[in-house]
């Protein structure tokens, strides 16, 4: 097992020995060594579509098992069947060697199988403490609540995890990573033995992910088992002992992590060998007048003295840690909020950007990282979302929006970005995360921007779809659009960018041409100052 606890003041390294007076969280590996969970030949059809085709696997006590696969590979269906929320058409499920196929979801929770859903399933209006103890007291069929006993139990479990959360605070006030810990604590109070974590890292920053991993590892050493559902190779290889990969409802890989390379896992997920695609284009036109020039850009407390240029057809990367100011700078370009000092020139002419409308008029487009809250109208159709920035081009002579033109425009983008949907009339909320991200991209691309700014464009997208997004970026650049990409992944930047700017502490610390530098050098610059603080709540 890897021991990669990040230096963190919040995780007390020694296990609390005081807890020995009370019941320990887990009894440790039992003698018989039956697998904790065994699934045999699980098959599930939905309306004739096969979601799972005879999947078998085991989870052992104290094991961290990765369940990997692209969107739509059957991961979620498998979780639901294990949790008992859905019934399999065929196949059996064993817990500790005993048949559990027919048991209800509640009985499975009582047997120690707990799903930590992506949305954490918490009650935002209740206190953190009550979120932890209320479900358990409901299961005990208590009529009266035992508040102080519940709070004490919550505190004990948090102590065993090694974190402090103010239990009287309402969950709505807690930062995301603490909400997740509340969900984990709730499961532990329930005597969970197997925690199934559905994409647990999507809403977390890198630092918070490391913190979560140290907690998972700590619990695993004490005999808790985990199914870690993810499509992020890097995280799987870091935390998991064994990996099960699903593709199109079938198991394509089930092996111990130490025998595997990343390429093998990726191949099992996508069904093809992943060769790092090269998106070299003809060198961008280095005219004397750049498409976009930013000079002496500053905003108090956010960034200062930012200077850079962007040529038409160039892909410029922004690297840096969370909080280095890279997001603030590009948002500043977009007037969210504008910079306090400095000038912006487009084609050598100075322009003023005070708000989003100014930026859009100047030909800028910004695709935010948080596509759900900033980028989409979730309840509107895919059609409407794609064309919302291009409406003026779709107005017919009579002044009405032409339905057929709208549908044609949307269909073009759905096709070009391979958005998987039965109909473009469906609401965007019906799409998977990766496809939603494509809709955001389509929306901005349909507006024919001159400068496209992408903030972490491949976050939450599975491995197989990333090359698709990269390809789109390359195509845009080939059409003389200037593209700015922010990414946490230096390999991604060196793959698609011509030039990379590294930011730290609100300033630009380096600028490298990708052809003259290396991934290693840039990574080194990014991480030069090790930052040991955990995010303060």
């Amino acid at each position, binding site marked *: 097992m890897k021991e990669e606890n990040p230096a963190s003041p919040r995780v007390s390294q020694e296990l609390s020995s005081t807890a020995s007076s009370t019941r320990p969280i887990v009894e440790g590996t039992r003698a018989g060594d039956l697998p904790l969970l065994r699934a045999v030949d699980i098959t599930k059809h939905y309306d004739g579509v096969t979601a799972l085709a005879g999947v078998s696997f085991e989870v052992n006590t104290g094991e961290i098992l990765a369940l990997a696969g692209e969107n739509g590979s059957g991961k979620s269906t498998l979780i639901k069947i294990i949790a008992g*929320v859905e019934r399999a058409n065929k196949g059996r499920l064993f817990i500790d060697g005993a048949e559990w196929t027919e048991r209800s*979801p*509640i009985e499975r*929770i009582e047997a120690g199988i707990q*799903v930590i*859903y992506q*949305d954490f*399933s*918490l*009650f*935002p*209006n*209740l*206190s953190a403490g*009550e979120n932890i103890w*209320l*479900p358990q*007291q*409901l*299961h005990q069929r*208590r*009529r*009266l*609540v035992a508040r102080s006993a519940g709070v004490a139990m919550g505190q004990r479990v948090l102590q065993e995890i090694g974190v402090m959360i103010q239990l*009287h*605070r*309402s969950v709505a006030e807690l*930062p995301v990573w603490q909400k997740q810990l509340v969900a984990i604590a709730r499961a532990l109070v329930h005597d969970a033995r197997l925690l199934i974590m559905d994409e647990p890292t999507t809403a977390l*920053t890198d*630092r*918070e992910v490391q913190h979560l991993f140290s907690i998972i590892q700590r619990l695993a050493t004490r005999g808790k088992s985990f199914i870690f559902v993810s499509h992020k190779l890097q995280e799987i290889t870091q935390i998991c002992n064994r990996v099960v990969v699903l593709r199109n409802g079938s198991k394509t890989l089930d092996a111990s992590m130490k025998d595997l390379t990343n390429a093998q896992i990726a191949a099992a997920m996508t069904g093809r060998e992943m060769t790092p695609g090269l998106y070299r284009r003809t060198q961008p036109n280095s005219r004397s007048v750049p498409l976009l020039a930013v000079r002496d850009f500053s905003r*108090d*407390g*956010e960034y*200062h003295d930012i200077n850079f240029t962007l040529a038409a057809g160039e892909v410029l990367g922004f690297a840096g*840690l*969370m*909080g*280095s*100011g890279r*997001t*603030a700078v590009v*948002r*500043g370009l977009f007037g*969210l*909020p504008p910079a306090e000092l400095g000038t912006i020139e487009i084609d050598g002419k100075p322009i003023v950007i005070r708000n989003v409308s100014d930026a859009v008029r100047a030909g800028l487009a910004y695709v*935010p*990282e*948080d596509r759900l809250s900033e980028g989409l109208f979730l309840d509107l159709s895919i059609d409407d979302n794609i064309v919302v920035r291009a409406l003026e081009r779709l107005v017919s002579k009579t002044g009405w929006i032409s339905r057929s033109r709208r549908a044609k425009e949307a269909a073009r983008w759905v096709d070009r970005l391979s958005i998987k949907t039965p109909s473009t009339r469906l609401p965007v909320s019906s799409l998977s995360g990766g496809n939603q991200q494509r809709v955001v991209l389509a929306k901005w691309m349909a507006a024919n921007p001159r400068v496209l700014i992408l*903030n972490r464009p491949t976050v939450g997208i599975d491995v197989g779809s990333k090359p698709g997004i990269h390809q789109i970026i390359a195509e845009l650049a080939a059409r003389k659009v200037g593209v700015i990409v922010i990414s946490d992944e230096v390999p991604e930047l060196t793959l698609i960018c011509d030039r990379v700017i590294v930011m*730290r*502490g*609100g*300033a630009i610390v380096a600028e490298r041409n990708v052809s003259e530098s290396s991934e290693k050098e840039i990574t080194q610059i990014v991480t030069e*100052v090790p*930052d040991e*603080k955990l*995010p*303060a709540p």
Partner: protein
Amino acid sequence: MRNFLRHEAIVLVIVMLLAITVGTINPGFFSFFNIFSILKNSTISGLFAVGFFLVLVVGGIDVSFTSIGVVGMYGTVKLALAFYPDAPFVVLFICAALIGAALGLINGLLITRLRAPSLIVTLGTMSLYRGFLLYFIGSNWIRDVPNAMVEFNRTNILALTAENGAKVGLHISVAIFLAIVAFVFLVLRYTTLGRSLYAVGGNPVAARRMGINVEAVQALAYCMAGALAGIAGFLSAVTLRLADPQTLTGSELDVIAAAVLGGAAITGGKGSVIGVFLGVLLIGVMNDSLILLGIAATWQKVAVGVLLLVAIGMPLLARGKLRASQLRTGGDLIRVGGASP
């Protein structure tokens, strides 16, 4: 939990400030007679508000309460006169509560079975219940109400003699109201059922995942709201010694305002009975002071409307501030050392 207490403390302070201001201008405000009458006048809308609040907690809304109250009241009187004119008060009281509970249950079942928006359903049943009453049960005033109601109306739990020798009494309906407030408070705070109401209002999906029967809990809330509305309607007839099938319409605003002022949120899962009680008291004190200060009765509606907007606006403003401060950090919500120059 702290939030709720904070909110309640604010409402309490406002009530006290208002009382002190009015009391300074017109010392008659602090007479037992006036205080008792504020409490008595708040009883009916207070009972409605507690019921309305229970539905808000589970994330629904029930605007049919006045109709339920009238049907419960008028139906009880009709039934008693037809079958059991000498019925003791308790029987009449329970009968009204049961009629109300039955109508509330219909609301609850319609909403949970049809998965229909509660506002639309209860707007429909509001009209339906009252129309049904007027057409099938009767539309005339009944002045000759059962004797037990008349007797009960004369009962005071506390009789005092004022300085001028007049007798003032605290009406027994106030005691009923306070008892119900206490009961609902205990249920909501100290039973798992009460906490389930909050859980369902806060996140119904999560509640279902952990084995709470969400539909049953919701239906129960409507049912309890109906019972409270039936009791409120019945007590209104007791205080008037008159069963009027057209009564109570138009009193909805005071009730909704009281619940919202007390910290309940239309989105569900928020607020407490204590807050609602204080909200009722605030509306009661305000209406009373406008009369004491000789301000035209029409201003009451304006005042209630303004209070309601302020109560709804304050949290929104606070949230807006929060959102703005998040935007200022430029998307990277968590900042790690050295970001400032």
